[in-house]
């Protein structure tokens, strides 16, 4: 551990990221440019989130890292080990015990408290990018609060599919001003963007940081006659029986057999430990 500066990054880099984080908090939903560094992992593996986490960590923190809700995937484990090595912080898989949670594409099911920070890994921070490829234009559109194009996109969803078909990275408006990409979380998670925790977003390749302070108004874009719906698979978890959690569909054989399980592994394990059972729970041993 002594071979690294605390939390890997050098102090000048951390100061630069910290200044960007403070401006991001002051202007909720606005993407602050920052001088993203190369990290010892490929782009797409959370280089932005890792830099934000590194700038926030203190030795007293307890870090949790999830990838699509799971603590035990390659990406989550390698980032957790990275900070165990370079910052010497404790890590945990329990949502309630973590002070900093870095996440890829999910918000934990358990409500977060005001002593927690949620750090998102963001691939494409600009919600208008697939509608307008030029950075100069999207920057001007944000400056003028010109978001008609986004509503046209949602309307075209309705015209083509009969409903808003966008199911993840569903655009939101923060505090009535900036339209923001919540990172590719399922739209089921959008209501949880209004939280007591500090939410920080880091996009390493695209060199942007943005944030949602606690208790900030976050509205998913919709129409009066097509209101936003936080949808999920219409099943209960097959391991813990939860009916209100976001589910992953898992193919279990070659005959089309499938099961649905909570994507939040800590939530599911906690419920199973409490005695909740689902359709496929291994009860035979008892």
């Amino acid at each position, binding site marked *: 551990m002594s071979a690294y500066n605390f939390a890997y990054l050098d102090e000048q880099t951390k100061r*630069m990221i910290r200044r960007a*984080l403070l*401006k991001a*908090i*002051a202007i909720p939903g606005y993407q602050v440019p920052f001088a993203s560094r190369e990290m010892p992992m490929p782009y797409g593996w959370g280089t932005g989130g890792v830099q934000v986490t590194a700038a926030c960590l203190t*030795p007293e923190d307890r870090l949790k890292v999830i990838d699509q809700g799971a603590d035990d995937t390659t990406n989550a484990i390698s980032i957790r080990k990275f900070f165990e090595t370079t910052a010497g912080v404790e890590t945990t898989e329990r949502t309630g015990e973590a002070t900093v949670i870095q996440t890829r594409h999910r918000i934990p099911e358990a409500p977060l408290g005001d002593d927690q920070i949620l750090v998102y890994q963001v691939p494409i921070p600009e919600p208008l990018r697939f509608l307008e490829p030029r950075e100069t234009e999207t920057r001007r559109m944000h400056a003028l609060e010109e978001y008609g194009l986004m509503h046209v996109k949602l309307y075209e969803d309705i015209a083509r599919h009969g409903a808003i078909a966008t199911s993840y990275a569903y655009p939101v408006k923060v505090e009535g001003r900036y339209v923001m990409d919540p990172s590719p979380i399922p739209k089921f998670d959008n209501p949880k963007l209004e939280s007591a925790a*500090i939410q920080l977003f880091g996009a390493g390749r695209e060199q942007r940081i943005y*944030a949602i*302070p606690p208790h*900030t108004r976050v509205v998913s874009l919709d129409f009066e006659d097509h209101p936003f719906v936080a949808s999920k698979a219409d099943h209960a978890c097959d391991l813990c029986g939860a009916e209100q959690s976001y589910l992953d569909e898992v193919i279990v054989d070659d005959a089309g057999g499938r099961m649905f399980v909570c994507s939040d592994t800590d939530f599911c394990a906690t419920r199973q430990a409490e005695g909740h059972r689902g359709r496929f729970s291994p009860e035979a041993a008892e």
Partner: protein
Amino acid sequence: MRDDVLTGGFSDAPVQSARAFRAALDALARPGRIVTLSGGAAPAPLSTAAATLLLTLCDGETPLYLAPGHDAPQVRDWVAFHIGAPIVGPGEAMFALGRWAALGRLDHYPVGTPDYPDRSATLIVELDRLAADGARLTGPGIATEARLSLPETAAFEVNRTRFPLGLDFFFTAGTALAALPRTTRVEAG
């Protein structure tokens, strides 16, 4: 050169600045919350919290304005030795430090541009006392309402109307630190 110019930096910069930043982030994300900041020490009249905040956030890339009263030779020397921030006028400042009256008119500071509202100054305002009473605060970061002993309210109301442009404030007194981002609605208590 005087001894107090050479001392007062962090003894363990990575850890002390990490703890100080978390406190500052907490304060800015929850306007009205008063946190404790210590570890740095600068020549008078700088408070411990202001010195620690400068050590945490400023370096050679952040032009700093010292308002009258704080613009003293020993303060300039301390900043030069520990931080290296260029000392500039209010119009070019990324950070400004001083007492409320000395900081002067707020329209002298950069408030950002419509394309880049983040290119705005952060003011560090030294106060005699900091307490959870006085002006009523509402807005992002505040569940219902908060109270903070601000030096006045009119200037902050004007600042808020410029959103997303505007200035962000840290208030310091001794080791106490609170903050007021541009999003907060301020009403006289």
